[in-house]
């Protein structure tokens, strides 16, 4: 199979560096170029020593590499629409970050652009390629737990806003400045906007869609940011499964501009845990554990050093397969729409202080 000639856009998304190794090592990919959104971002990329041409102008990159077939759109959420327009015009396939857009009109435009251009758009929900999640799905589908009654899922992390500032700017993460609720000085676009996985996972596990959601934002752990950082969500799926989600930034971090050792204050910087109660039993899963642990440099704090993170391998394999064999990705725009709608419904619930039906 001819390798896909691929580039990366912007390099401002928190997952950017997780792609580097896969783009370099996967023989089905030929990494041609990157576009860095600023000199600072470029300098960080160059320090990684990947020997890939790096441009500060997106157009210049496209003009110098007319053979680019696909991009990883590693940019802030408010940049996606414009970048999709450019890719559709050029017939370039897109690996999109988790939130193509929270604005459903923009989302519809992106769907239309992709459809008309006949390009592949796969949304980065890497948990689908996590071996623990694969096992979890297998156990549920084999019926060992019986019909699922209840799911409690966390997607808890530290806050990325100091390293990836757009995630703390409402216009760039949510797409516009919308107050969380009347009288609240904070705006949409914080931890909820960062954590779609649990919304996606429950649809997949239950084979059902959201019936209603109730969400409540807590006071911020970080009073100096203008987006939400703690919230809780519960509700029901249409098949009666009830759920409780915690998609908070409830693990404190050192305010580093470049993520690295010592970023976390709480030992585990990121967790996705799932508890399921079924009619025939219960399941507890830690999608990123067990690991190894130390209390070394730079802060002598107890720290989880992850042993997982090969999700990007499977995800990029699927992306290549879809492009070369004209397939539709599992996480395509049409599937993902209901996840974004549920997240928007949570923001609405916070604003209204009551249940929101979908």
């Amino acid at each position: 199979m001819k390798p896909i000639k691929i580039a990366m856009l912007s390099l401002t998304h928190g997952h950017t560096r997780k792609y580097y190794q896969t783009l370099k090592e996967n023989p089905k990919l030929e990494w041609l170029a990157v576009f860095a959104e600023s000199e600072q971002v470029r300098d960080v990329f160059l320090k990684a020593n990947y020997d890939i041409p790096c441009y500060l102008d997106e157009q210049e990159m496209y003009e110098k590499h007319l053979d680019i077939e696909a991009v990883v759109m590693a940019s802030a959420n408010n940049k996606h629409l414009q970048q999709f327009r450019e890719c559709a015009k050029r017939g370039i396939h897109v690996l999109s970050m988790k939130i193509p857009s929270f604005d459903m009109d923009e989302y519809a435009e992106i769907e239309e652009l992709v459809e008309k251009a006949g390009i592949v758009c796969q949304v980065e929900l890497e948990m689908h390629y996590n071996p623990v999640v694969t096992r979890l799905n297998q156990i549920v589908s084999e019926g060992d737990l019986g019909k699922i009654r209840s799911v409690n899922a966390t997607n808890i992390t530290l806050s990325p806003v100091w390293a990836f500032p757009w995630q703390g700017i409402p216009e760039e993460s949510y797409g516009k400045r919308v107050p969380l609720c009347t009288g609240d000085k904070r705006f949409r676009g914080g931890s909820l906007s960062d954590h779609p996985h649990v919304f996606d996972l429950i649809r997949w596990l239950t084979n059902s869609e959201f019936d209603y959601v109730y969400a409540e934002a807590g006071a911020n752990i970080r009073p100096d940011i203008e987006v939400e950082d703690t919230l809780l969500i519960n509700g029901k799926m249409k098949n009666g499964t009830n759920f409780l989600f915690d998609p908070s930034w409830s693990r404190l971090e050192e305010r580093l501009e470049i993520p690295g050792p010592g970023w976390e204050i709480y030992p585990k910087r990121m967790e996705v845990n799932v508890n399921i109660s079924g009619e025939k039993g219960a399941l507890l899963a830690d999608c990123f554990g067990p690991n190894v642990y130390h209390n070394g440099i730079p802060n002598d704090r107890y720290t989880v050093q992850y042993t997982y993170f090969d999700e990007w391998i499977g995800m990029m394999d699927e992306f290549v397969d879809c492009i070369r064999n004209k397939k539709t990705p599992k996480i395509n725009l049409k599937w993902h729409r209901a996840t974004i709608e549920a997240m928007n419904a949570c923001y609405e619930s916070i604003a209204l202080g009551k249940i929101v039906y979908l």
Partner: protein
Amino acid sequence: MNTIIHSQGMEEALSGLLRKYSISEPQDFRLTQPYSSTGLSLLPGYSLIGASITENQIPLLTWRLKRKFIELKKIVQDSVIENVRMFRFSSMGSKDEWEWPWLLYREMDLCEFIGNGKIVSLNAVISDNKAGNAILRLDNNIICSIEISTQMPSGTDLVDRHEIIAQRGVASDLVVDTMIPQDSIYTYTDKGEQRYRDVDEELFGFKEFQIDHIRSAFQVLKQGELVQEWQAQHKRLVNFIKSAFESEKERKKITFN
């Protein structure tokens, strides 16, 4: 025994990885006994302890491709913990899956691999070839304790611990305040409690020791210079095993040049 199961599936999985990453695939190879008479035999090194190695037999140091050990090695190598002084390793397996020298072989190699040093002395105490321990010293002055037992009941997964104590910091593959390895998934159903630990999506469905076996075979085929390095290391480890029994018998510390 660990080396005699699921051969075909493992070999197919290895072939799949080799094709995926465009690594040349040997015409004839085996991952399990009986050995291939004409092709490559890629077996865990401990299963070749009593055998004389031919050039077509590659003793695999399978644990070196296990992610938790790769990360522990990185923690030491990158000086995340500084000035390592002591290792506390333990490995307890069931007698129908493990032989005592096999586990000692694995743990002694891990001492050298993670500690980036060479064993210069050992003193071992062993009971009935089933339980025992050894104290080692590496040439970089790290001292190591290794506790080995094959007295776990049939069907028990290997229970191991690798703790590294440094002047600045401690690292371990066990969570603080626990004694046994954790798993990723626990289910509680009519079947009782069941545990799952899945670590590799590309090789999903294989047991962890099979994944280590396939990954290490892949690595030697990808990185040819490892063949000689691992064959040489195998000879050293076999010699250390003999010395451990000699130490027990003679009740003395054995030193190596």
